[in-house]
């Protein structure tokens, strides 16, 4: 009886923070501030430099077949919003040589990344947002409140061993990040606020 009661108490003691798939933040959370993160183009970026109406932070890792399967879609998405007040920022933070700046520079050039791609050695931005996968998206409005987090669309894709891209659910039908950005730019509430991001685990120092 005592064990059952304890079990029930544990079952109803829901975490105070965290969304459906995120252990740390929920929709509405503020964007964490960051300073002077080095970027692949040789510049540095601080959160206070971001002036656009919408900011999209996307966690990436060069080695990850899920990033490589879907960063083509990211590049297209960035292009779609050119000229609009939307800023995409890629963030890498794994402490692996094949995910650090030199590899990031090469990867960004090869894949035609036309967005700022920074490396966060401290891993603080990822920890603050509960980012645990690559790719994983966080969309913020002009008040820098989180309006969407999760996957780019509904058909996670990875590169197979031969290099071809495989969409696990066929052609994507719902473009979650695009919709969230469009709705936010229009001042409308985001309809789908959270999805499960699919990809490689981000490795944080213990």
């Amino acid at each position, binding site marked *: 009886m005592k064990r059952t009661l304890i079990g029930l108490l544990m079952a109803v003691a829901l975490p105070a923070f965290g969304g459906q*798939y995120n*252990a*740390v933040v929920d929709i509405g959370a503020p964007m964490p501030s960051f300073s002077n993160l080095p970027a692949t183009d040789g510049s540095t970026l601080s959160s206070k430099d971001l002036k656009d109406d919408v900011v999209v932070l996307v966690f990436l890792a060069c*080695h*990850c*077949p*899920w990033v490589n399967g879907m960063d083509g879609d990211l590049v297209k998405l960035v292009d779609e919003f050119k000229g609009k007040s939307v800023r995409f920022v890629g963030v890498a933070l794994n402490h*692996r040589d094949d995910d650090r700046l030199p590899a990031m520079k090469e990867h960004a050039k090869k894949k035609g990344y036309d967005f700022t791609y920074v490396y966060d050695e401290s*891993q603080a931005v*990822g*920890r603050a947002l*509960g*980012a*645990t*996968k690559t790719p994983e998206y966080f969309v913020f409005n002009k008040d820098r409140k989180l309006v969407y987090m999760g996957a780019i669309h509904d*058909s*996670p894709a*990875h590169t*197979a*061993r031969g290099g071809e891209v*495989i969409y*696990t*659910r066929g052609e994507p039908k719902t473009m979650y990040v695009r919709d969230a950005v469009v709705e936010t730019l229009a001042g409308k509430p985001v309809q789908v606020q959270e999805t*499960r*991001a*699919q*990809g*490689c*685990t*981000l*490795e*944080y120092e*213990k």
Partner: protein
Amino acid sequence: MRGRIVVVDLWATWCVPCVARFPKMIAMSKRWRPKGVTFVSLSLDDRAEPGSYDHVLKFLKEHDARIPNFMMNEVLPDAFDKLNLNSVPAVIIYDAGGRERARLTGDDPNHQFTERDVEAALDRLATPSAR
């Protein structure tokens, strides 16, 4: 596996930390076998990808994975939904009665599980009073 504690190790060949910890998991499986614990590996590699099954099998053989090994039939997003999982590596531990008793994941960046967490969970479960 009836009457034994079962440790389900969820992994994939594309998952770098999964591959890194696989030998430690195999070593752990040998240490815990005499204590009534069975380790099982469950790969979330894409069955539909040509050559995927053989690739996983090759990996298991190279790592002398003499434990029950399984592969999900579903593609990753459907597998995650079915298992209510957000990422791999992950470890789910069932007691001798088949009830889930521990779920260790990397969902919290400030506490991604380690092998010590697996050992600690087994220490708690494998004592006679816990069963």
